[in-house]
């Protein structure tokens, strides 16, 4: 069987930079994501990974261009970017803590007005994260850290993303929970969902990602194939420059 001939590049970013006040937190970067890919963004704390995610969504003032499926992603309009299918699970999860789990999921599907489709997506999230099912009526803030991360991912899936961006989903979680979440992300990706996964702990994603960008002091220092990385020393070399 031959694959249909179509441009496989879904996201292309050129010269994207971001500044907070007078500080350029993200120096111009270029990156791209191909259809069905899981791309990792690695780097130490403060390398600009979260800023890159926020810049992609237009949450911070930026320069440069972001194109998604050939259409320009508007700057400074994250709601519009979300409507295009670019969905970010932000650092710290960004769940609506005083609201119930059910309400959080409902807001994930804010742009959807089709009840049947809503039920379909809801079922899918419940299948992926059965633990959320028992907690639908609870406030999101009462969940454990792992459950909150599942809710954040579940909420993002409710919008049926075309590209899922995750900013350090492992932060503050127990290894067993991290493994569970990464496994789910792997499943989603194998089912065709392109993912950008930001991580500080590189070893976590090396088995999942086919490509990884290494960030350092506000810019992309290297692009690597994680499968080629033989040792932690080699990776440390990229981190330390």
């Amino acid at each position, binding site marked *: 069987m031959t694959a249909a001939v179509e441009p496989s590049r879904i996201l292309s970013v050129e010269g994207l930079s971001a500044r907070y006040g007078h500080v350029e937190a993200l120096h111009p970067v270029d990156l791209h994501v191909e259809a069905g890919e899981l791309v990792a963004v690695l780097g130490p704390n403060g390398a600009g990974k979260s800023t890159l995610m926020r810049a992609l*969504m237009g*949450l911070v003032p930026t320069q440069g261009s972001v194109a998604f499926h050939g259409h320009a992603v508007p700057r400074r309009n*994250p*709601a519009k970017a*979300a*409507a295009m299918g670019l*969905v*970010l699970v*932000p650092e710290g999860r*960004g*769940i*609506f*803590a*005083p*609201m119930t789990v059910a*309400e959080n999921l*409902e*807001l*994930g599907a*804010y*742009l959807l007005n089709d009840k049947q489709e809503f039920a379909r997506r809801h079922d899918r999230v419940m299948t992926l994260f059965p633990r959320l099912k028992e907690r639908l009526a609870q406030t999101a803030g009462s969940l454990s850290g792992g459950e909150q991360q599942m809710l954040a991912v579940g*909420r993002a899936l409710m*919008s049926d993303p075309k590209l899922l961006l995750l900013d350090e989903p492992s932060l503050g979680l127990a290894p067993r929970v991290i493994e569970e979440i990464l496994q789910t992300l792997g499943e989603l990706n194998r089912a065709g969902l392109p993912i950008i996964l930001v991580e500080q702990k590189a070893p976590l994603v090396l088995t999942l990602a086919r490509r990884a960008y290494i960030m350092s002091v506000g810019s992309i220092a290297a692009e690597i194939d994680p499968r080629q990385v033989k040792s932690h020393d080699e990776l440390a070399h990229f981190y330390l420059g």
Partner: protein
Amino acid sequence: MLDLVAQSILSGIGVGCIYGLIGIGFCVIYNASGIVNFAQGAFVMMGGMVTYTAFARYGLPLPLAAALAIVLVAFAGVVLERLVVRPLWNRGSTMFVMILATLAAQIVIERLALLAAGDQPRTLPVFTDRPPLRILGLAVNFQFLWIVACSLLVIVLLALFFSSTKTGKAMRACSINRDAAALQGIPVSRMLALAFALSAALGAFAGILITPTQYTAFNVGVPFAISGFIAAIVGGFGRPLGAFTGGILLGVAQALAIVFLGSAFKNVAALSILLLFLFVRPTGLLGPAK
């Protein structure tokens, strides 16, 4: 004496409902944006003045005039957001600048009302023109019943709006975490405009309800805004139900101060309550919203 006290508590509750509605208006905008909208009083004044104009000048039936006023004032709320708040917001101005801008807007609206409608106080007829009911020896006039019933109705409707509609939930999401709300595709700036419309409509409604028992004029806005602001602080800023409770507490305290100390002490009582809460319980009755 006891009768007099009971009677003034009753009238305090009536005025308190009005303060409470205005206080809720403060909360709605504050929750959506963090802005304390000092033009809130202008909405109250406009509610009464527009209703008067439509009713007395143009001969519209009172309910229609009131409905028209609420819609027009809600629209004025959106205009205020678009014209004054949004440009500052987009430029990344500090909260302080935006709050001062709403105060400036209050002055502008007040002066425009003076130019357009003159400085004469206006009033509206009571909604039900019948002698007061006598309940347990107390005279309960119909306007009081209108005020209390309408206020409670508005609160129930608001609670339903925020708990059961998608738009209401989206507004709550914006108040909890604006960035996260935007990431769900919620049009955050449209929610802000909606908050101004809702808040303005609440103010106008309060202004219409209270006008038959008092009067309205170009300059009634500021005193009402101050009372509503105190109600919101007493309740715990950003907590609608708290603001309503705070409003009633304030109304009753003022009424009692008038009975026992004389009418000159009305504002003393209001500001004393404010100070008392700021010293003893700065988070208000229900605690802060965030």
